[in-house]
């Protein structure tokens, strides 16, 4: 579906986080090592190499329709092997932050999942799977979703990887101050 | 007839093949002492009459060996020699000289093993082929 894409001047405004990212990636020479190393590259619609190219060329809208950076599991293979020594995995994380911050509703499943996970850890100091999944299913509001997780759930239960704790017993986690500090830093950036 | 020791005249070029022969010597490769080496500056210098002379005087075989095409110190001496050998290989067999008594090959400077192998193989072949009796026979 090659369509002509006006490659005008990549939008550069001073404090725009996106231009921060593209400045880091300028030295990329598209050698393809990152994509070759990426475990989940097969499932990505745009390979990492294409993502860096889009960042460089300022194709912002099209970039945020892609699910690539959501699938990045931060294994740091690409950063280790990049001959230009570019912070590739950190860029993927930065793209996630920009996507959530600028509300690109391109992926309805991943942000709520991460949010549910973070809230559970914030509350209990560790993740309580049952509560986290219920919170995630509620946020996604898609009735079919829980059913698709049932087989996985049963296997985890059988193996004792997950117990059914009752939500609501608040043994407050001790990470509250940590979360506050992080939020302060993010606001300052 | 395998009791006699053949004498093989080897016209070798001073650059690649002579170096390979030295290399075969210095790497102590076992090779038969039947080769008599005539060191020419280049195979392109070998006049057909030298080879005719050698065979008529009774050499059991003649080996002409020079650098691979492209390696020649004088750019194309070996290519000219190949044409002269083609001429001789067309003329001499007509008079009963077995084709195997005249051999041309390329041996590069590092191919000491090839040189020793060529010497061994050629000596065995000519020994089995039999003596060139012109050596002790009157030739017009």
């Amino acid at each position, binding site marked *: 579906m090659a369509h002509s894409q006006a490659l005008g001047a990549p939008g550069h405004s001073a404090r725009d986080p996106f231009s921060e990212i593209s400045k880091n990636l300028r030295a990329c020479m598209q050698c393809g090592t990152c994509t070759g190393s990426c475990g989940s590259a097969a499932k990505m619609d745009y390979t990492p190499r294409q993502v860096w190219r889009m960042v460089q060329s300022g194709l912002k809208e099209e970039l945020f329709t892609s699910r690539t950076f959501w699938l990045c599991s931060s294994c740091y293979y690409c950063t280790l092997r990049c001959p230009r020594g570019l912070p590739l995995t950190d860029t993927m994380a930065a793209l996630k932050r920009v996507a959530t911050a600028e509300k690109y509703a391109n992926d309805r499943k991943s942000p709520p999942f991460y949010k549910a996970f973070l809230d559970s850890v914030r509350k209990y100091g560790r993740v309580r799977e049952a509560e986290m999944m219920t919170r995630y299913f509620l946020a996604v509001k898609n009735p079919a979703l829980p059913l698709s997780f049932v087989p996985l759930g049963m296997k985890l239960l059988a193996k004792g990887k997950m117990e059914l704790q009752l939500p609501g017993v608040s043994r407050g986690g001790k990470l509250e101050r940590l979360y506050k500090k992080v939020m302060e830093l993010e606001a300052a950036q | 007839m395998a009791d006699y020791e053949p004498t093989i005249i080897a016209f070798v070029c001073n650059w690649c093949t002579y170096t390979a022969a030295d290399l075969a010597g210095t790497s102590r490769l076992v090779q038969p002492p039947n080769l008599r080496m005539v060191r020419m500056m280049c195979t392109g210098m070998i006049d057909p009459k030298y080879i005719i002379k050698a065979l008529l005087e009774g050499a059991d075989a003649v080996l002409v060996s020079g650098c691979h095409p492209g390696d020649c110190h004088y750019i194309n001496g070996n290519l000219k020699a*190949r*044409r002269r050998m*083609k*001429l001789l290989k*067309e003329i001499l067999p*007509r*008079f*009963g000289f077995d084709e195997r008594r005249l051999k041309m090959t390329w041996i590069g400077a590092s191919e000491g093993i090839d040189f020793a192998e060529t010497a061994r193989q050629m000596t065995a072949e000519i020994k089995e082929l039999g003596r060139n009796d012109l050596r002790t026979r*009157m030739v*017009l």
Partner: protein
Amino acid sequence: MSKTGKITVKDRDPVSSLQNFLKLLLEKGTVEAVLVQQRLPIQNAAVMPVLVTDPEKLEGADPLAPAFPLNGARMLSRLTRKPLDAPIAAVMRPCEIRAFFELVKLKQGSAENVVFIGVDCLGTYGNIDYQKIAASTAGAESTLTFHRSILSGKGTATGDADISPACKSCDHPVATNADIGIGLLGANIEESLLLISNTEKGARVLGGLGIEVEEGDQPLRQSAVDALVSERTAYRDKMFEATSEAVSDVQKLMGYLGNCVNCYNCRVACPVCYCRECVFTTDVFDHEPAQYLRWAKRKGALKMPTDTVFYHLTRLAHMSTACIGCGQCSNACPNAVPVAELFRTVSHGVQKAFGYLAGASLDDEPPLSVFGEKEFSEVTGGKD
């Protein structure tokens, strides 16, 4: 397709009408001299190449005579070794023209200022045989009887003499590379001779003489030529086989060359052996007395002079790519050693191996003067 004209033959004598044609060339000034085989106005009427400038002196010219005293190419090479600003015509046999082409490639002559008139060659006698015939019948009569007996199908022999083996096995009776061809084959030479113009120089000369020429093929001539060529080729292949068998090993070769006394006359007669002095006559081969003794000691006995086989093999190596099979070497050998058959057989093989036909055209390079990067890998056992 060829452009042909005619010379009408008066009172059934093609020789004189050919002479008139040559006179025309001189009178019209197309050429300043004609080199033609002429019966000398001397006692036993020898036929020799003569350079004629005065049209009147052409009356002995007899290119049709079955005489081939020597290969005219060497004479023409002497004439054109240095640039000659006067145009000359050379009436020659096909093998003489082909020999001259080889000499041109070796810078021993030049073809610019020469008009080649190539006569169909029906064969020639050895010098000794021809002298006997010429002595018995006077003047051009012997030529006419020779051609009449061929025309009437009685063949080329007169008495016990016949044309030399080299001519019998010659598959180039027609001078295809001459500017103007004198066609005998396929014509009744008592009425007319064909005039074939093969090159534009030939056409220019004929045009200059006002001889009109028309386009069109000559079926009659073509079949006559083909017949003669196939007959000669059959003889030639038989000769090749016999000769190869006769020299199939050194012992037989020595027998074949048994009578050779190293007089090197065959080299002198050979048109393509162009060396001013053959290496076998230079100091390289006048050996030290001790050397003869040493050879004799090693071999028990030593024929003197030595290097006979060595000489013939080396001469083969030098000129087998240029040999045009004119037979002069046998013709010149005092001891009737069949040198021509040997050299023709070997040269045929060598020229086929290099894909080269001696004397065919001035453009193709002699095989040993050029070389290629990737060729003849069979010589080095497939290695390149």
